[in-house]
């Protein structure tokens, strides 16, 4: 036989052994498990912090990033993804990790501003010229308006979208939890597809051209305009929205095992420095620092912002239980 099996088997073996495994050349490895729209933000943050750390300590850091729907990412960390830090879309997802004992239940008090170095909100991204005339939340329930938003079960942004819509309905004359539920249900009737993460929804809307309005993170809406050009999309700011506080935390169990606590902590603290705040603002996240915020004042529109700690929601644990847990309001709405 002209084709030797032994030679083939040998070649396969050599290939398997010789295929280089991921090499770790840097002094420190840091894995940041984050939610969907922060990809560009953390590319910039990692570069800046890496240079600063190198200048101060002489050591190089190899940053690893993982992005996906916030809930899905939390699940991965719970299942063993070795995140030194988590930078997720909402506090509940880090609570869920804390519930499994991977970090202190008091994690949110360890850093200023509820451990949220930047904030964002939910706005509408519509096609140029706003052909469907979408001005506010009540325009989303009109027949024939296709609304794009991800799945609140897996996406943090989707949960903020949902709560923002709920807050709007509550503030309307005669608003009650019952009317809010009906209103939010009407919005989801207009949703043709639920992606698992915010970026998936953005791509559905911008690249695949599905839908009339995208319920988007403010930073994601700005980024879409930047990526695709101002002549493609308009941002519509609704009368009321939610103050989204994406939190950050060091995962105690992981950093203690890997010995990376010090660098992980200074990484997160870097987000609060003037430099970190500038980077956040340049990536369209609302900075916390008053000075930096003032500088970017003209970028971010002012609007009435409700927080999740509003009595209507009672914090993330409550909101999660009422709305997004199994059999919660979202399930009741979506199964009908």
């Amino acid at each position: 036989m002209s084709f030797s099996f032994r030679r083939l088997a040998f070649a396969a073996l050599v290939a398997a052994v010789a295929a280089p495994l991921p090499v770790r050349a840097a002094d420190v490895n840091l894995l940041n498990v984050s939610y969907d729209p922060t990809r560009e933000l953390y590319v910039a943050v990692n570069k800046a912090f890496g240079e600063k750390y190198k200048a101060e300590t002489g050591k190089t850091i190899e940053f690893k990033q993982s992005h996906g729907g916030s809930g899905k990412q939390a699940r991965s960390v719970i299942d063993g993804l070795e995140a030194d830090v988590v930078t997720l879309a909402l506090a509940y997802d880090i609570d869920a990790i804390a519930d499994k004992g991977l970090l202190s239940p008091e994690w949110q008090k360890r850093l200023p501003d509820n451990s949220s170095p930047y904030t964002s909100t939910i706005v509408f991204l519509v096609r140029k010229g706003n052909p469907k005339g979408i001005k506010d939340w009540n325009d989303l329930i009109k027949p024939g308006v296709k609304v794009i938003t991800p799945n609140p079960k897996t996406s943090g942004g989707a949960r903020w979208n949902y709560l923002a819509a709920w807050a709007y309905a509550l503030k309307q004359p005669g608003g009650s939890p019952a009317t809010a539920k009906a209103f939010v249900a009407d919005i989801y009737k207009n949703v043709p597809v639920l992606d698992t993460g915010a970026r998936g929804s953005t791509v559905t809307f911008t690249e695949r051209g599905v839908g009339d309005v995208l319920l988007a993170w403010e930073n994601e809406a700005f980024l879409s305009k930047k990526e695709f050009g101002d002549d493609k999309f308009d941002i519509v700011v609704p009368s009321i929205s939610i103050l989204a506080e994406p939190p950050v935390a060091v995962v105690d169990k992981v950093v203690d095992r890997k010995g990376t606590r010090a660098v992980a902590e200074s990484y997160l603290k870097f987000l609060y420095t003037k430099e970190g705040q500038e980077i956040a603002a340049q990536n369209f996240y609302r900075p916390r620092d008053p000075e930096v915020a003032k500088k970017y004042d003209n970028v971010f529109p002012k609007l009435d912002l409700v927080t999740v700690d509003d009595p209507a929601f009672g914090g993330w644990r409550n909101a999660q239980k009422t709305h997004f847990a199994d059999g919660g309001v979202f399930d009741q709405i979506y199964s009908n």
Partner: protein
Amino acid sequence: MSVIAPTEGVPYAVEHFHAATAPPPPLEDIHSEPRLVRAVVIALAILFMGLFILLPLANVFVQAFSKGWAAYGAALVDPDALAAVRLTLLIAAISVATNTVMGLVMAWAITKFEFTGKSLLITLVDLPFSVSPVIAGLVFVLLFGAQGWFGPWLIDHGWKIIFAWPGIALATIFVTFPFVARELIPLMQEQGTQEEEAAVTLGASGWRTFLKVTLPNVKWALLYGVLLCNARAMGEFGAVSVVSGHVRGETNTMPLHIEILYNEYQFQASFAVASLLALLAVVTLLAKTLLEARLGRKGGH
């Protein structure tokens, strides 16, 4: 796909291989349809192939080169892309090696021996084809994840399986297991055990019988199975996505890297990597065609 055909009944692989050896009867003789019908059927087949297979594939390459050669090259030498290529090749090598050996063992056991539970084993060979890839990934998370059966033990001993390359390899092996076994079983069933029995009677050892009789008899079917297995191992998305953790530069295979680039508005780079993956598929296809041509000349065994 022919590989999904049930084991019992026609041994499709053999039939398929033999089809090429028998001199084909002149087509005019066995088809009496009017010329028009024939033209329509052929046109339909070509149109379908063009529209649904070739056009999308061609589009991958058009998009990949939409910003020229330089951008194409840059997308491929990006460190994260290179890491994805390396990981994909490593995973494919491990899966193909494992499944070749285990596929041979499985086919050998099923076709040459009688034992209780044999029919169950035959059914189980097909299981990975009928289970959704997502579940294939999830079972390993439930076994080896931090909250899974063996998770805590693995963590205590510093072993990483899920969200590292061993988990990706496990999931890929699971998904691609049937390819080799499904190619071999019908063929070896048809060949029976007479040749082996003759060899043993003549004094050959078991191992020698395997090397000199069984293996040469099935080598082309085996290679065919290996090719299919390799193609799927490189392209698998669902199962790998569940166990990967999506750490770029570390646990992203090529299919996952393509999705990430696409989601980061790097459409051209995404298609560049996709074109590389498609190219690997084309190479596999070419190898398969060569193999079949060779098979036709030499006759299945």
